[in-house]
Every structure is written in C-alpha cells, then in structure tokens.
C-alpha cells in the first residue's frame, strides 16, 4: 500500500492544487446530478400529470354496439398478466344535467370504487364529502360543482339520451387537476351506470394501470395476443401520446449529452492536473525507481491520485447537487408550497453517476500513470 500512501501524501502536501481540482470535480458532478435528477423528475412529472390519473391501457368494443360481451373472460385474462397493476370494468354513457334553461353534457362513469381508485386515484382527489356508498349516489368534479353551485347531499337530475330522467344524490366532490374531466365526469357505481343506460350486465370498457407506464404498449401487445378477439380494441397511452413521448425522448438525449460532456471535462481536468503532477513529482518518482519501486507500483501512485480525487470530489459533488436540487425546488415552489416539479429521487441514477465519475476519475489517472512508466531515474538524477 506504499503507492496509496504516497498518492495520499502527494495530494495532501500540494493542498491548494488538490482543493482547486476537488472543487472543480465537485461542481461538475453536482451539475450532472442536478440536471440529471431534475430532468428525470420533470419527465416523470409530465408523464404523471398526463397519464397519472388515467388508464394506461383501455379495452373497448370494436363493434357497432358500444358494450363488450363476455367481459368477465377478458377480465380473467387481464388478471393473469403480471404487468397489470390494477384494472376495472367500466360502464360509461352520456347524459345531460339541466341548468336554468340549458343542458350541460356530462359523462356518467360507473366503476367499482376501489378499482377506480387504483387507476384514477379518485379517493385522494375527493376534497369534500365522501365516496359513493349507495346505488343512487354520485361524485361530482370541482368545475361542475361551481357551475351548478352544488353542495354535498344535493340532488342532481340527469336527462338521458333515450328519454327519461334519473335523480342522483351528490356524495362528494373531487378535483383530478384536469378541468375537462372535473367539468364533465360523474363517478358512480358500476351497477348504477349499467342500470341507467340499460346495459344489462355488460360494460363499455375495461381500463387498467400497468406497473411500468413505459411498458404499456408491450403489455397491450401481449393482451392482444392472448385475447385474440376481433370484437374489442386495445389502446394504450403511448400510442395516444406519440408527440409527448418524442418530446420526452429528445429531453432524455439532451440530458445524456450534458452528462457525457461533464464527465469528459472531469476526466480531462483530472488527467491534465495529474499530468502536471507527474512533471512536478518526477524527481521523487525517479528516486523511488532508483530505490527499487517497480514501474507498476510507481504508476499506481497516479491511478490512486485519480481515484482519491474522484472519490472525494464526486461525493462532495453528490451532496452539492442534491442540495442544489432541493434549493431549486424550494425557491421555485408556488406560494402554497407546491413544487413546480415533483421530485423523483432516482437512487439508481445517483449511484450510477457516482460510480461512473469514480471510474472515470480513476481512469483519468491512467494517462499520467503511463507517462510515469517512461520516466527514467537516470534522467531525473542527471536533470538536477
């Protein structure tokens, strides 16, 4: 471990030079961590806000009739797919709510509450009142509430397209953060919707959430294969959001390029500082070689220097980068304290970045190490 001890001593002896390069590495790595985590969080926030409160895959009827026959068979196939996190049959139909002299169009969506909650997160979105707990109860969105000036317990009269009216009681109000949904969707029991629209025991769609949202297309493909049913159509969010996905992909690539450039600059900085160090330390290396240190151990000194600079610099950079990110999220938060981006702390990315920085810094030591191999003690002894 003599090489390690000498490397450590070289670094601590030339303290100001070491501190300077450490600060450089720390800043570079902190920017890498900051940019990487921020862009990752941003992407996930965008995806969450786009599809978080909607199904990732939807099965609906491909026939002239809007309802699906033998949907229980489909559900049992869906249940068997390990990638599916949650699923729910749904009966959906159009209706109108009377207001003054006009009719507001609404979409009545019947779900088993617990299943719908897993897909739409509706339980958390209820901000006043409770979930529906009897057959004639309904949940109303925030925008529609304002329009109709409703309170919990109020009655709502629906006009049905085939004629006739139905009266439902408001059990509570939700806010899913999407105005168009808040304004038009009414959540109620599956059975209530089936009854209102005369669907019998049929449903209009089977909606599901998958474990990895980016695998939705693959899961949809698997289901298509296993179900092999021409009466249904299977759609997934990725096919419906191609532009968003290509935007995210572009963002991902630019983030990767920034990170590669940062790592390259760290490697160049360390390699150049250590290359100068080889020149500065050539008398010491020369005398060590004269005393019998072999070429490998002499060059190991510079590999260790790269490793130590990388270790300390990257750890400081990690701390600084994470601190920067929290500071950024705090200072850019809304007056209510909600961050503009939901922080998604990707541990895998942080550990990966740290390891890459450490390996790159160690490898940066190879260039000066190779230089030290060529160092002949005779030249050093003569040169003085």
């Amino acid at each position, binding site marked *: 471990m*003599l090489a390690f001890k*000498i490397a450590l001593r070289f670094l601590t002896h030339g303290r100001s030079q070491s501190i300077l390069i450490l600060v450089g590495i720390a800043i570079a790595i902190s920017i890498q961590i900051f940019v990487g985590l921020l862009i990752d969080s941003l992407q996930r926030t965008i995806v969450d806000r786009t599809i978080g409160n909607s199904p990732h895959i939807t099965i609906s009827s491909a026939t002239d009739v809007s309802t699906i026959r033998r949907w229980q068979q489909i559900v049992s196939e869906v249940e068997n797919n390990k990638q599916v996190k949650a699923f729910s049959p749904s009966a959906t139909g159009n209706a109108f709510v009377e207001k003054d002299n006009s009719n507001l169009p609404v979409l009545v969506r019947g779900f088993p509450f617990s299943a719908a909650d897993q897909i739409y997160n509706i339980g958390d979105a209820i901000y006043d009142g409770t979930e529906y707990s009897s057959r004639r109860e309904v949940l109303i969105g925030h925008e529609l509430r304002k329009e109709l000036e409703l309170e919990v317990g109020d009655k709502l009269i629906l006009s049905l397209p085939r004629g006739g009216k139905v009266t439902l009681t408001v059990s509570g109000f939700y806010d899913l953060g999407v105005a168009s949904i808040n304004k038009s969707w009414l959540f109620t029991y599956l059975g209530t919707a089936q009854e209102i629209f005369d669907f019998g025991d049929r449903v209009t769609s089977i909606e599901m959430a998958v474990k990895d949202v980016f695998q939705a297309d693959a899961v949809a493909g698997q289901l298509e294969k296993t179900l092999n049913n021409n009466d249904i159509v299977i759609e997934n969010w990725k096919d419906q959001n191609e532009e968003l996905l290509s935007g995210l992909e572009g963002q991902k690539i630019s983030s990767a390029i920034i990170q590669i450039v940062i790592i390259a600059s760290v490697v160049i900085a360390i390699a150049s500082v250590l290359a100068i160090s080889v020149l500065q330390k050539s008398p010491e290396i020369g*005398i060590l070689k004269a*005393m*019998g240190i*072999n070429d490998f*151990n002499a060059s190991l000194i510079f590999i260790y220097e790269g490793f130590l600079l990388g270790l300390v610099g990257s750890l400081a950079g990690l701390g600084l980068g994470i601190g920067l990110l929290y500071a950024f999220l705090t200072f850019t938060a809304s007056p209510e304290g909600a961050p503009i981006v939901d922080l998604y702390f990707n541990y895998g990315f942080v550990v990966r970045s740290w390891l890459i920085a450490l390996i790159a810094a160690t490898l940066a030591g190879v260039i000066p190490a190779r230089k030290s191999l060529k160092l*002949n003690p*005779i030249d050093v002894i003569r040169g003085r």
Partner: protein
Amino acid sequence: MSGIIELTQLNKIYRGAVDVQVLFDINLSLAAGTCNSIMGASGSGKTTLLNIMGTLDVPTSGDVIIDGKLVNNMTNNQLARLRNETIGFVFQFHHLLPEFTALENVLMPYLIKRRRPSREVINRADELFDMLEIANVKHSPATKMSGGQQQRTAIARALINNPKIILTDEPTGNLDSETTQKICKGFREINRRYGTTFIVVTHDYRVAEHTDRIVEIRDGRIIADKTSG
C-alpha cells in the same frame, strides 16, 4: 578472487546525431567490503560508470555482474528488485521526498518491499540516525532540515535495507568541508561496522583519500588504479 561488482569489456556509446562514446573497454573488479573511489574530471565518464554499476543505465557492450548475477538481460522489475535489495544510492542532491519526514524517507526502501516496518527495521533506522548524528531531526519534514542533515538522511535511507553495495555520486558536492568530513567518516564507520562495499564517485581528493582504492578515469578510460597501504 571475483568481486562484488565485475565489469568486463564495458563500452558505452550515446547514440544521437553524432555518436559519443563515453566508456572504452572498461574492466574493473571491486572486492566486497572495500571502500573505493572513482575519480575523474567532469565529463570523464565516471558518473556513467556508476550508473551502469547501479543498473540505472545499460552498457552498449560488455558484461555487468552484480553480487554474482549477470544483469545484462534482466527485466526492469528484476533490476528494480536487485537495486532494492542489494544497492543503496546516495546522490549529489539528496532527492528526499518532501512530503515525508526524515524517518519515513529512511524507511521508504524497506516499504517498497514490505507492507509494514518491523521492530528490527525501526531499531536499525534509530541506530543509523544515531550514527549519522541526525536523531534530533528524525521526525522533521524533509524540507525543514539543513543540507547536511538532508544528505545524511539520504545516506541512512540508502543503508536501511542493509545493502551489500552503496553507490554515491559526489555525495558531498554541495556541502562545506566540516560536513564533508563528517560524512566521509560516516561512510568509513558503516563500511567497518556492516562490511558494506562503497563506491564513491568524486572529483575531490579530500573525499577520495578516505577510501582504500582510488580508480582514476580520463576520457572514458581507466588511467590509474591505486590501492592505499
């Protein structure tokens, strides 16, 4: 009797735009346990000869045998090992590592071979510090010592592995006459106590007169070889 250093038909030519031959057919045998000096004017080839004896440089032709081993075809690592175990160097400039204390510098050749200093080697270092009269600066950084103390530390470093051979190149070139005398006496004491073979390259008669044998070189050739009574 074969010597601890045997040089046979040694030639050294520095290749370049113009080839320069600095050593011509040198034949030299140095007996173990003796104190030798190599004298010559600047450019006479004496330092090249010393570097070849120390395996730091290679001859263009001829054989070099150190402690019974022909070194001509040894690999770099084999040579490094041989230097570490058999040869100690003292140069005109001490070349101490400024990042380390005097004691750490002295232990360095030992630590090249082994992980931790043994009790014995620490005792030996203490003995060398005492003998060279530098015990008071044992824990001082190399940069905080006088020129004489630094050079004596370098001598202790050369001796720590108990080498059979010490090669020194103008060891007192930078020192005043009082310190020079102290160092020469130190060499003799070590030679007497441990039987170490000394080869001292110098142009200074006051140094050479402390040795048993004076080999004189001019223009790459041995012109005189005197053994004192």
